[in-house]
C-alpha cells in the first residue's frame, strides 16, 4: 500500500506536467486529477510511515550502491504532505487567477507548476546524493522558466539572475557530491553516513555542498537573486517558490548536517550558519518593513523566515557540546515545524497579494486603502497567515517559534533569543502595516477601480484561506505531526 502511494507521489506530478504540456486544453482537468491523486497518496504515505515506521524502497529492485534508493522517514513524509497541501491550494487558486489573463500565462504555468512539484517530491524522497542534484536542477529549471512566464524585460532579467545564481550553486553542490564519492565510494546518503570518512576531502565536500545549497536556499547574504525573482513572478509562482522551492535546498542541508556528516561539522561552522541566519532575520525583516511594493515586502519576509531556519544549526551544535536529548528533539521539531508553518503561511500571503493586485489594480502597499471591504476573505487570510508569520498563538508559526525560543533559552544561546524576538516584532510591523492600509476607508489617492475586480472567480480567495486555516489548525493539533516527524528522526531513539 505504502509503496503504491510512493509511486503515485513520485510519478503523478511529473506525468501530469508532461501531459499538461502536450494537451494544454485539458490542463485544468489534469491539474485537478494530479492534485487529488497526489494529496491522497501523500496522506497514505504519511499514514504508512506513522503506523509502520521508516519505509525504504530500491527503484527497480536495484539495491543502493548501484541503484537509486528511496528513503521515507517522518520528515520526508511530512514534506511530501506539505508539498501536496500547498500545491493543491496553489493549483485551485491558479485555475481561477489565470482566467483573467495574461492570455497564455496559464498555458505555460501548468506544466511548469506540476514539474516543479514533481521535482520537489523526488527531492524529499530520494536517498542518492547525485540524484538529488538532478532533482534540484529539474526544480530549478522549471522554477526559473516560470519566473520568466511574464516575459517582459524585468521578469526576464530577474529569471536570468536567478538562473545564474542557482546554476553556480548547483555546480558547487555537484563538486561536493563528486568529492564525497571520491572519498567514501558511495552516493547513497545512508551508506555515506554509515562509512565514517574523516579527512579534509569530506570537509571540503560538505563546505562546497553547503555553499551551493545556501545559494539555492537564499540565505543572507546569498539571497541577492530572491527579491527580484519572487516578487516579479506571477503570484501562484511566487507562492510556490517562496513556500517550497527554497525549502528543498534547506531540507537537503538539514539532512547533510544532522544525519549524514554530524561528525564532520564543527561548532564554529554551525555558528557561522547561525550568524548568517541571524543576519537574514534582522536584515530581511528591516527591508520588509520599508518596502513600498507588497510582493517585494513578502519576498523580503521570506529571506527573514529562511534565516530562522538556520538558527537550528548552532542550537544542534550547542546540544552536542552541552548535552540534553530532550532539547535536541525540540530543536529537530522546531526546524521541521518552522518549514511547514512558513510554507503554508507564505503561500497564503502571496496568493492574497495576487488578489489585492487584481482588486486594487496596484502592487503599492499605500494603495491598499479600502482593500478589506473589496476583498474581505483575502484580508482575513492575510490576518491569519500573518499572525503565524509573526508567531501569534494559535498558529503553527507560534508553536515553531516557541520551540525555537525555549530551546535557545534552555541552551543559554541568548543572542539567538534576541534575534527571534526582534524578528517577531519586525514581522508584526510589516504584517499590520498592510492591514492598516487595507482597513482604512479614506482613499489617500483617488484611482479608478481595477477592471478585473468584478471578474475574479468567487472560489479564488478560498484557496488561500484554506492554507491559512491549515496553519491555524497546525498550531492547535501538533502532537500527530510531532509523532510523524519522530519516525526515523536522528535522535528520537528509533534508528532507521
Amino acid at each position: 500500500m505504502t509503496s503504491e502511494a510512493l509511486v503515485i507521489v513520485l510519478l503523478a506530478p511529473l506525468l501530469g506536467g508532461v501531459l499538461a504540456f502536450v494537451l494544454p486544453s485539458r490542463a485544468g482537468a489534469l491539474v485537478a486529477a494530479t492534485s487529488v491523486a497526489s494529496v491522497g497518496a501523500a496522506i497514505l504515505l504519511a499514514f504508512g510511515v506513522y503506523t509502520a515506521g521508516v519505509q525504504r524502497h530500491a527503484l527497480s529492485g536495484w539495491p543502493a550502491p548501484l541503484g537509486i534508493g528511496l528513503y521515507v522517514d517522518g520528515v520526508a513524509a511530512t514534506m511530501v504532505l506539505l508539498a501536496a497541501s500547498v500545491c493543491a491550494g496553489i493549483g485551485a487558486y491558479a485555475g481561477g487567477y489565470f482566467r483573467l489573463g495574461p492570455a497564455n500565462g496559464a498555458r505555460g504555468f501548468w506544466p511548469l507548476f506540476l514539474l516543479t512539484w514533481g521535482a520537489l517530491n523526488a527531492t524529499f524522497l530520494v536517498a542518492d546524493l547525485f540524484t538529488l542534484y538532478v532533482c534540484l536542477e529539474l526544480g530549478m529549471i522549471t522554477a526559473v522558466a516560470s519566473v520568466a512566464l511574464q516575459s517582459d524585460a524585468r521578469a526576464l532579467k530577474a529569471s536570468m539572475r536567478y538562473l545564474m545564481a542557482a546554476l553556480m550553486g548547483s555546480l558547487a553542490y555537484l563538486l561536493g557530491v563528486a568529492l564525497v564519492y571520491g572519498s567514501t565510494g558511495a552516493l547513497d546518503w545512508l551508506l555515506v553516513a554509515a562509512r565514517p570518512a574523516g579527512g579534509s576531502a569530506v570537509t571540503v565536500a560538505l563546505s562546497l555542498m553547503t555553499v551551493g545549497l545556501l545559494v539555492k536556499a537564499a540565505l543572507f547574504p546569498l539571497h541577492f537573486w530572491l527579491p527580484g525573482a519572487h516578487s516579479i513572478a506571477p503570484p501562484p509562482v511566487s507562492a510556490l517558490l517562496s513556500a517550497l522551492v527554497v525549502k528543498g535546498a534547506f531540507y537537503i542541508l538539514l539532512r547533510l548536517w544532522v544525519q549524514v556528516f554530524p561528525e564532520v561539522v564543527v561548532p564554529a561552522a554551525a555558528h557561522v550558519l547561525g550568524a548568517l541566519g541571524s543576519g537574514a532575520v534582522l536584515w530581511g525583516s528591516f527591508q520588509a518593513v520599508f518596502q513600498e511594493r507588497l510582493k517585494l515586502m513578502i519576498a523580503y519576509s521570506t529571506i527573514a523566515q529562511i534565516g530562522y531556519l538556520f538558527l537550528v544549526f548552532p542550537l544542534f551544535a550547542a546540544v552536542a557540546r552541552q548535552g540534553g536529548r530532550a532539547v535536541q528533539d525540540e530543536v529537530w521539531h522546531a526546524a521541521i515545524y518552522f518549514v511547514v508553518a512558513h510554507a503554508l503561511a507564505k503561500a497564503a500571503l502571496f496568493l492574497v497579494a495576487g488578489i489585492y493586485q487584481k482588486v486594487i489594480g496596484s502592487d503599492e502597499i499605500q494603495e491598499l486603502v479600502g482593500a478589506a471591504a473589496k476583498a474581505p476573505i483575502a484580508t482575513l487570510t492575510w490576518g491569519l497567515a500573518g499572525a503565524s508569520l509573526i508567531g501569534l498563538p494559535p498558529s503553527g508559526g507560534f508553536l515553531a517559534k516557541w520551540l525555537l525560543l525555549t530551546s535557545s533559552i534552555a541552551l543559554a544561546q541568548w543572542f539567538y533569543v534576541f534575534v527571534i524576538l526582534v524578528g517577531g516584532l519586525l514581522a508584526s510591523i510589516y504584517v499590520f502595516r498592510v492591514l492598516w492600509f487595507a482597513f482604512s476607508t479614506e482613499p489617500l489617492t483617488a484611482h479608478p477601480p481595477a477592471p478585473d475586480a468584478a471578474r475574479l472567480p468567487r472560489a479564488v480567495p478560498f484557496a488561500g484561506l484554506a492554507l491559512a486555516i491549515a496553519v491555524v489548525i497546525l498550531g492547535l493539533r501538533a502532537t500527530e505531526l510531532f509523532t510523524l516527524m519522530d519516525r526515523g528522526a536522528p535522535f528520537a531513539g528509533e534508528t532507521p
Partner: protein
Amino acid sequence: MTLEADVPVHLFYGLVGATLVAMGFVALVTKQHVFRKILAWNAMGSGVFVIVGSFAIRNADHGAADALPQAIVITGIVVSVSATALALAIARRLHRLTGDVLLEAGDDKGTA
C-alpha cells in the same frame, strides 16, 4: 615505465578540472554579458566533469575505469545542456525586447 607511474593521471585531470572551475567562477562573477556568463558556467561545469572523471581513473580496477563517475558525467551533461538551452532562450528573448543582454550588478530588486 609508463606515464601513470611518473605523473598520477587522475591528479593531472583533477588539477585541470580545478583550474577550469576557478576560471569559470571568476568569469561568472565578474562578467556582465549574459553569453559570457553562460560560457563561464559551461567551463565551470566541464571542470567539475573532469574532476569527476579523474575519480573514474583513480578507482580503476584492472584497467577498467569506474563506471559510476561516467554515469554521473553523462547525466550532468544532459542537465547542463538543458540549463544552457533555457539560459539561451531567456537571453534571446531579452535581446529581442531590450536590445542588449547585460546583467548589471546591484540591481537585485528587479526594478530595471
